[in-house]
């Protein structure tokens, strides 16, 4: 990891191992940079939620070392106070109401700002009538409620598990604004770590990306660095087979081929009629996932 602007790590993981029913999460070393939005990308079952749950302190049965805030602290009440978590699973008891979770937040969390919470509820149009059970909220509104709760706290680190998935496109855009605003407010001191399948929607807010497959990190880096490391190549159909052995991933069609090439391998395509473009994070992620997946693709 190298970046001129980087000032430390919000999380450092060493020799993390977690086994569960035939699945193994194995992360020898991982650092999440402080002051940035880091996206955790990977196919279903790659281990994203398990990793996020370990970081959030929901899973405690793992081996290895996880430290927070420049390796200063392990998971403890002080760390939990500075960390906000939003998850996809059973976050609330279904019979709870928004009033109840607000009351609980006021009691559990030292720096919870109720006025900010209600303002966010209003801003995000969350239907939070006093007697409405959370089970009656749609998945999108439930996610908005969780986001309002964590954003109404004074935190330094947000861990968000699939925050964009249940949201509509407009709200996803708003989510990006909120994440960006949170980071700017922290002036380098606040960080966000989120998992996502909606890479395109979240790209404009992603500074650093971590790609996971089968419980392991297969690629990571600042997005700008990844866009220098990988090149999007388009070429004629006649060159497709020759290029296939060089490209990191390739999609062939009657019109030609398109694929992601490691910048260091670009010389090997010399002589072919190709055009080069900067890939999007989505294209890089799909290429990396395709190269590592156990799914069978028919070309």
């Amino acid at each position: 990891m190298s970046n001129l602007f980087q000032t430390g790590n919000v999380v450092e993981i060493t020799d993390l191992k977690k086994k569960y029913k035939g699945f193994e999460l194995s992360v020898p070393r991982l650092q999440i940079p402080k002051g940035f939005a880091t996206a955790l990308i990977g196919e279903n079952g790659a281990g994203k939620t398990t990793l996020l749950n370990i970081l959030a302190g929901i899973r405690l049965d793992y081996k290895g070392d996880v430290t927070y805030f420049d390796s200063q602290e392990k998971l403890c009440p002080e760390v939990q106070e500075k960390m906000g978590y939003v998850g996809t699973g059973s976050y609330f008891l279904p019979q709870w109401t928004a009033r109840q979770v607000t009351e609980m937040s006021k009691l559990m969390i030292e720096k919870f700002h109720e006025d900010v919470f209600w303002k966010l509820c209003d801003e995000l149009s969350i239907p939070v009538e006093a007697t409405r059970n959370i089970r009656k909220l749609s998945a999108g509104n439930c996610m908005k409620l969780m986001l309002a709760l964590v954003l109404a706290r004074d935190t330094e680190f947000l861990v968000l598990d699939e925050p964009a998935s249940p949201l509509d496109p407009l709200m996803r855009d708003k989510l990006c604004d909120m994440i960006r605003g949170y980071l700017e407010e922290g002036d380098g001191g606040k960080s966000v770590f989120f998992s996502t399948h909606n890479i395109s929607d979240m790209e404009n807010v992603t500074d650093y990306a971590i790609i996971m497959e089968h419980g392991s990190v297969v690629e990571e880096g600042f997005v700008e660095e990844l866009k220098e490391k990988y090149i999007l190549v388009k070429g004629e159909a006649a060159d497709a087979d020759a290029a296939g052995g060089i490209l990191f991933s390739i999609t062939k069609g009657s019109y030609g081929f398109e694929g992601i090439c490691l910048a260091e391998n670009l010389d090997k395509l010399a002589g072919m009629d190709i055009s080069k473009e900067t890939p999007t994070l989505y294209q890089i992620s799909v290429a990396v996932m395709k190269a590592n997946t156990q799914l069978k693709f028919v070309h």
Partner: protein
Amino acid sequence: MKAIKGYLAFTSYIYRIVMFGVLPLALIALYVLGTVVMGNAALIMIFIIPFVAVMVEVAADTWMFGGIQRKDAAKMDFLKTSSGGMGLLQDALVMDLARRLLSLSGVMVICLLVSAVEGVEMFKDTAEGAGIIVSLILSAYAVSVLCTLLSRFGAMFWQSLMAGYLGLFIEAMCVWLLVLPGHPLVLCCIYGVLALGVSVLAVRFAMKKVRGGYYDE
């Protein structure tokens, strides 16, 4: 004070109306109906109150902590990821038990006061009568806590009702022991120990199950 606030945070408006208002008032009204309006049925009514309390307490718990001991229970990540979340839950569980005991004791005391005002003499021996009343309170409390512990393995209302019916049966056994010739004070002590034991068990077991969510097994 924080524990009380925490407990109240776990209660919905409907739960508060039913358990803090409707249930105690209904039990007192039932007693007054039997004692004043229908004639001298005070002794029967004072024995009926614990049965109603057991049934309602067990059934209503489904709105508070229903299903928290299930294997696939809602994991309450909201509480687990907050530094004070587990403490808040434990306080709420303890305060719920305290509320039950206070509520039932309060109802019984008011009923006895109504009897005193009406000049109804239920027991010839005051000490024996006190022993029976305290035993009724402690047995009903212990049975309601025990059956609540069982009902929390299910999240459905009918499962709580079934646990409530079981509670009625156990309470009937307790009352039967109480009306047998013997020493109500001894029973009073036994029910007291049982009440304390099931209270500790109920809180510890619920917390153990919830904390178990941090681990796969």
